[in-house]
Structure formats: C-alpha cells, structure tokens
C-alpha cells in the first residue's frame, strides 16, 4: 500500500478503523486517531465515503427467512407435555367435555345464577367435593391452593401453556363460575401466581387458602 506522501503507520491504523468510525462505534481515543489522520489523507477521506456507502447498501440487503417460531414452540412445549401427559390429557378431555354446547349452556345458566346471588367467586371449600382424580393414579389428589380464571376466548392450548408456565397442577374445575382449581408447592405459589397474572388470557389468579398454603 505504498503511497507517496503518506506516513504508513498512522495511515494503516486509521484505515483499519474506518468501518467502525463510519458506524460511530469508536471510543474517544480511536476516534481521535482517525480524525487527526483524515485531516491530511485524501485517500482515507474517499475510503470513508465508501464505508458509509457500504453501511447504506448493506442495510438494503434484507433476507427473506421464514419465521420458525411455530416449529420451535412445538419442540419446546411438546417435551414438557409428554412429562405431564396423563394430567394434561385429562385436562384436554375435561376441556372438550366442558365446551360441548349442552354443558356450556348449563355452565352459563349457573354463572348467571351465581352472579344474581351476588357470589362472584366460588366457595373455597368447594374443591373438597369437586376434587379431580386422575384415572391412572390411585394416589390421593393434592389440595387446591390457587384459583385461576381465563378469558372466554381462551383455547385449550393456551390454557395448557399457561399451566405449564406456572408449574401448577390442575386439581378441579371448571366450576360454575368457569374457574379452575390448581395446586402448587407452597414455596412456589407466589411465583406461579405472578406468572399466571402476567398471562394475557388470565383474568384472575389468586391463592385460595391464605398466603402460605
């Protein structure tokens, strides 16, 4: 790169930094080296214009790449589902059963009755008589210590995703007020509630037997 009239060492140093000078990514020391050199080097001034042109041109090269979120989500969520298959399968069955038109009509009528009676939330003792028993399990079901309600348009997949995120297990529901009863370890409950409350589909998530239950 011999060039008459150019002091090679500062020239090379400044020229090597030009791309990052063009994008404003140099610290004060490096920037001073380049700016000092630019005052006396026409070659680097021209090169700087080209660097800025390169930045502009590279900005117009936009690759067309498929958004692979759906595939990635499947590979993330499916393993989690398989770990909880019996419970979630039962949950899906319950959801399908609960959303059949006759059942939905019955649930709606019950909800109206509950609203008229001034009872917004269900009786917290209700899980004692409505506990859910997994078909494949003979163990005693866990006691519900959380309640959650979803928006009316929530799909079964969204509900399943919300429960997976929270780490809670389904104990019972849907109740007359379309609420679901959940169980989670006591020390994990505040986090589980926070996770559910941050979900857009969740309209209510709260403890039902005191803060430490």
């Amino acid at each position, binding site marked *: 790169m011999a060039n008459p009239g150019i002091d090679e060492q500062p020239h090379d140093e400044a020229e090597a930094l030009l791309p990052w000078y063009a994008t404003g*990514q*140099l610290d004060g020391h490096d920037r001073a080296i380049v700016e000092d050199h630019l005052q006396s080097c026409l070659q680097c001034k021209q090169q700087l214009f080209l660097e800025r042109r390169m*930045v502009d*041109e*590279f*900005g117009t090269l936009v690759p*067309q790449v*498929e958004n692979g979120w759906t595939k990635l989500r499947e590979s993330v969520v499916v393993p989690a589902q398989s770990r909880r298959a019996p419970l979630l399968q039962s949950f899906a069955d319950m959801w399908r059963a609960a959303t059949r038109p006759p059942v939905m009509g019955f649930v709606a009528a019950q909800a109206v009755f509950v609203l008229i009676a001034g009872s917004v939330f269900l009786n917290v003792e209700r899980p004692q008589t409505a506990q859910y028993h997994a078909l494949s399990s003979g163990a005693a079901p866990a006691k519900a210590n959380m309640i959650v309600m979803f928006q009316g348009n929530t799909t079964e997949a969204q509900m399943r995703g919300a429960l997976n995120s929270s780490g809670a297990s389904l104990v019972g529901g849907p109740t007359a007020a379309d609420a679901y009863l959940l169980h989670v370890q006591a020390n994990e409950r505040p986090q589980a509630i926070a996770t559910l409350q941050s979900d857009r589909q969740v309209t209510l998530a709260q403890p039902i037997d005191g803060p430490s239950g």
Partner: protein
Amino acid sequence: MNLQGAIKALRAETARPAEVGERELLARIERRDIHAFERLYRMYQPRLARFLTHMLQRPQLVEEVLNDTMMVVWQGAGNFRGDSKLSTWIFAIAYRKALKARRCWPDPLEDEALNSRPSPAPGADQQVQHHKLRDALVGAMARLSAEHRAVVDLTYFHELGYREIAEIVGCPVDTVKTRMFHARRRLRQALPGDLADWV
C-alpha cells in the same frame, strides 16, 4: 444470595434499559415462561436471520440454525453470567452453530446466496448504480469465508464495535481488524469501476 448471584444482580442493575428488559425476559425464560421466550425470539429473529443468512449462504439452513440457537437460549438461560450484553451471548451462540452447520454443508451456493430485496431508488441512474453495487456486494460476500462474512455483517449492518465482535467470534480484536481489512479489500475489488465512481 451467593456472591455470583450478587454480581449478576449488580450487573443487571447497571445495564441499559433495553438490556434490562431483555434480562428480565431471560430470567422468566429460566423459569420456563414460554411467553417470555416467544417475545425474545421475535426480538432477535430478524437480526439473527440476517446474520445467519450471510454466514451460511444457504437460506434453507437459516431457520434450522436459528432455532438451534434459540433452543440453546431456552435450555441454557441460567448459564448466562452477565459478563457481556445478552445480544453478544446470543450472537456468539449463533456464530458457533453456524460454523458447525457449515462443516456439514461446506459448499456455498452462490446463486442462492442472498434472497435480497432492493430498496427503492429515486432516479433511474441511481437505481441502476444501486443494483450494480448491490449485486457486486452479494457476489463478493459469497466468495468470502464464513468468518470474514460474519465480521462484515456485524460491522456494517449490526453496527457493532470491534471489541464486541471479537467477543462474539471468540478471537482477539486485532484478528477482527485484520479480517475486516481483508474483507473490505475483497469487496472493493469486486466493485465495478474505480473507487471514485462509488463515492
């Protein structure tokens, strides 16, 4: 909180607002929050897609490598120590994944190198010159090594400094400067006409 946790928390406190938001997402991802993961994915997908497109030169591999990268983020969110920016960590994962993929698919397909979209140009002459320059750059990029393409893309498009690029590609800063110097020379040689025609 142990010492490492305290250091991590201190770094999070001193990070920039956008970085803090990203780190909060990462903390939620560590707790298996799929919604936080989706948000982070959608934030990074365009940038990673572009970076990997240039590195891989095989559009059909980009989605796969990108998802492999984000799967590492999902599975290893707790491994992020906070020594660097979150974006640096994620791009470093993508860089290593891309190099590994290229070992399996070493031959670039130049005609599929970049499925790029031209930006509108105001005048016919400018548009012709723009297309000539763009085509020359695409061809020249395809002939560079993956390591050189990574440095060029991270510099010109992602506008990262050479120190951060060195962290991503895992080499000394002088190597980054040298790679960029040679890549620029190759790109310049690929441009039709003289330097003065393009400035």
